């Protein structure tokens, strides 16, 4: 229990009145000195009640996706027999989570048996987040004594935001037609492509017997060659993508990684041979190849899934490393602005782009997941268009309208999306306020309907 000297000044006030009363020979002032002294007496006599409170904490939803809002509700009940005139409570929100609405603090009076509710909203981030016990302070009505303690709450204390990758993001994914992909080259297949002169070794089933009957020449029918469907997911997690759409939300790199992870799993689940690469991982990661590019081949051996997991872990670690740096700590992460709010663009070198293009399998469908905060994604889209690769751009909208600077950044991003579309790419704009499932649904529908 702490004693607060709130009425020490009242002593001085009483002495001033006594002094003035004596100086001016004014008895009324001497009597008036009793007024401040009354406060001192009441303050000195006030006693703290034996407080007994229970706190229950709940999360809604309890299994959120990153950037989802989670409502935390604390129900406080006075289980004692005395009224608590001044009850204050502060919930132990983990440092890495940010309160985006409401307040995790409250002050109210509680009658015996009465309960009150504090509710606030946090922006979810990936991982398990342990809430510490709420701190409670009780004061007397006059505020001269206080007692501070923690209360162990019942209910939930860990917010898990790890749903994800194992879930099928789109229920209808398996309903899409999957299998082989027709190409422009002739060969084995179903759909007619052309005919050519018979060459020894051609299967007899592909001989055009009708033409042979008419002309007496052996001709071989060619069909659109069909190959296994391939896709390569490119994650843009370079440092300058690490800007947040709003204070407290996950940054562009985190959102891109999360979306890419779910998309990758969905594609694999749909029997699409899917490769994976990422930009901004750093050179020292285990999965980085000799050309400085991390790479998981779409048609690798049995280690593909493990390598993909390693690569996603490496991306997350590089993001976490950046958070640990004092210059780019999570608490000082910039909001997207075009005028220096975000770090200077560390564009991808030409060599890296060339390595990436060289690595892409022929006819692979490329999925670029990027917040589009610089010009590289657009130039990459142009390069892909010239090399005849289909491209899907899935872009989390971390540049959102707000301040004039943010509005300009958002306009720049919209223009980049447009430019990407002009190169022939399909774009999916993911408003982070909306569930990722919607964006993934659109992406997968585009990808799989092209097969």
């Amino acid at each position, binding site marked *: 229990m702490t004693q607060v000297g709130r009425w020490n000044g009242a002593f001085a006030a009483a002495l001033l009145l006594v002094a003035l009363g004596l100086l001016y020979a004014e008895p009324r002032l001497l*009597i008036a000195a009793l007024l401040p002294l009354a406060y001192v007496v009441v303050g000195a006599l006030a006693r703290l009640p034996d407080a007994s409170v229970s706190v229950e904490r709940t999360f809604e939803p309890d299994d959120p996706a990153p950037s989802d809002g989670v409502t935390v509700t604390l129900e406080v009940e006075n289980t004692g027999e005395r009224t608590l005139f001044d009850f204050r409570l502060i919930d132990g929100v983990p440092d890495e989570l940010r309160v985006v609405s409401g307040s995790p603090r409250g002050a109210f009076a509680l009658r015996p048996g009465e309960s009150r509710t504090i509710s606030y909203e946090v922006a979810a981030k990936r991982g398990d987040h342990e809430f510490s016990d709420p701190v409670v302070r009780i004061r007397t009505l006059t505020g001269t004594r206080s007692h501070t303690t923690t209360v162990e709450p019942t209910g939930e204390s860990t917010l898990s935001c790890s749903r994800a990758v194992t879930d099928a993001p789109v229920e209808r994914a398996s309903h899409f037609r999957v299998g082989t992909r027709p190409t422009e080259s002739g060969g084995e297949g179903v759909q007619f492509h052309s005919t050519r002169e018979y060459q020894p070794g051609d299967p007899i089933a592909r001989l055009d017997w009708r033409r042979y009957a008419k002309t007496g020449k052996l001709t071989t029918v060619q069909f659109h060659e069909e190959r296994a469907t391939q896709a390569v997911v490119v994650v843009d997690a370079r440092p300058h993508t690490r800007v947040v759409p709003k204070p*407290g939300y996950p940054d562009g790199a985190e959102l891109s990684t999360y979306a890419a992870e779910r998309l990758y799993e969905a594609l694999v689940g749909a029997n699409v041979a899917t490769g994976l690469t990422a930009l901004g991982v750093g050179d020292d990661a285990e999965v980085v190849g000799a050309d400085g590019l991390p790479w998981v081949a779409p048609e690798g051996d049995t280690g593909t899934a493990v390598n993909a997991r390693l690569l996603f872990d490496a991306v997350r670690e590089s993001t976490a490393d950046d958070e640990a740096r004092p210059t780019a700590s999570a608490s000082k992460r910039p909001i997207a602005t075009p005028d220096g709010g975000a770090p200077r663009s560390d564009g991808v070198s030409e060599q890296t782009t060339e390595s990436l293009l060289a690595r892409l399998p022929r006819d692979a469908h490329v999925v670029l997941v990027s917040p589009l905060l610089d010009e590289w994604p657009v130039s990459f889209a142009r390069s892909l268009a010239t090399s005849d690769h289909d491209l899907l751009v899935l872009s989390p909208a971390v540049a959102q309208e707000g301040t004039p600077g943010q509005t300009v950044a958002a306009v720049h991003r919209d223009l980049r999306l447009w430019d990407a579309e002009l190169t022939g790419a399909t774009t999916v704009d993911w408003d982070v306020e909306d569930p990722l499932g919607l964006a993934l649904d659109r992406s997968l529908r585009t990808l799989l309907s092209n097969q």
Partner: protein
Amino acid sequence: MMPDTTSDTDGRPPASNWDATRASTALALLATAITVGLLAVTLGVTVVKGLAASVTGALCFAVVLWLLTWDRWQVSATVAASALVVPAGAAVAAGVGYVLLVEFATSFPASTSTRVVGQSLRILSVAMVTVGTTAAVFGVAAVPRNFVTRDSLEDGFQLVSRTAILPIAFAALTLGYALVSNFGSGLEGPAGDFFDTFVSGLTDWFLATDSSSKPRLLSFWLVGTVSVWALSRALTALPTRELTAGRSVGDIDAEVVWRRLESGSSNLAAAGFVGLPLVFLLEIGVPDSTVRETLPGLVYDALVALTGLTSLRYVLLAIAVLAGVSVAATRLLRSSVQTDARTVLTGYAPFLGGLGIVAAVLAIHGPILDALIDFVAGRLTSPLSGNFRGLAGRVEEFYGSHAIVLGLTAGVLVVAATAVLALWLVFSLGFVRDRVSGPSIASGGLFVAVAFAGTLQIPFSVVLVGLLLSLFVWDAGEFGVALGREIGRRATTRQVELLHAGGVLSVGLLAALSTGLLASVLGGSAGGSQLSVALPGAVVAIVLLVMALR
């Protein structure tokens, strides 16, 4: 304060979230307003007029300190704060001065010497009521944002002192010029003669303009040494090294020449300072006849001619002044270049404000002084009024209205700086803490005002209500500050705030009723002498009881 309007990028609440909570702040403001209103209504029109002026000044002072906490638009805010310093100080001075003037005019001349003491105490009470109320309004204005801190008062003192420099300098110049140009006709008697003799003697000594045929070695040495020293400092301060680097005139390397000039002048100045005591001793210790006999005639004549050459003195003094200006300008430029523009502008903004004040005074000094004289004379009784007008007329004729108004402005600024410094001292000594500065000043000011008002024969109920509300201002303000700091404005806190305020007011009301009842009982039954003995005893007993309880 401007940064409060935006939140940090990490999603934490804005700084304004941790200011005092709204309900308690509103209650403190309301209680202050009620108490000030009660005092104004009870004490009469005179005090109301004075209070209106001084309260306006207090609000201006609060705005000045608030402007100094701005991070954005810092330069503009500093200029605005500088410009507000004079109106703030003038309003407070006018308010307190008006009350004192009117009370003085109504109280004096007193019929007996006993009444003089009584009237003096009455004037003191009225003045303290005004000062206390002014402080209370200043303090309560700071409650919502808590911008009155030790740091902000330091900034405020710097601002006021920097703003005051130019008005004080101009006032000193104009008043000094008026004094020098008018002392012959303006100052009569021995004082005037002494001043006249002193000034002319000093001028003659420095410029060698008297008709003496002796060598004036000491003054010549002093002027020469100061001139050479100033020159050496100017050569060091000016960018001569950078300008002469690598340059040459014919076969002569300019850099070497400048370096030798620098070292030569520096050595010469050092020799001059070292030799100054010797020359002083020679001047006062060796008679002129001995010098004349010792030196050859030609050398002596040359020494007399050289040290008596007035034009040479003018040249040396001009060199010293020019060198001094060069050094000051160079240092100013160097420090400005090495500091970022915002800091430089913020540093110079008060001087700009001071210059604006000087310009404003020079533009409208006549009407201001006339209005001031009419106002003061109008408040005085007939013999005093006439005397005052006569005196004011003579002073205006001697100094000029611009010099007087500039002097008054400089005086107001000095008083303002002193007041800020005094407040800073109160903070430094620990009487007021930064965290609860607003409620402390507001409550303290109100309490002092009500306590002194209690000596002015106002109804006891008003005194009790005033004392109760002044204590309530402290309680509500401190409670709001603590709650805002711990819980913040985003949380819902109104219920607990109103409950606390209700509880504290109930305690106060009970105490006030009991005190009033006691006063009426004692007033009706006990004699004056018994009461004066019994009451202090009772109060001391209660104090001891409370201390024992604690």
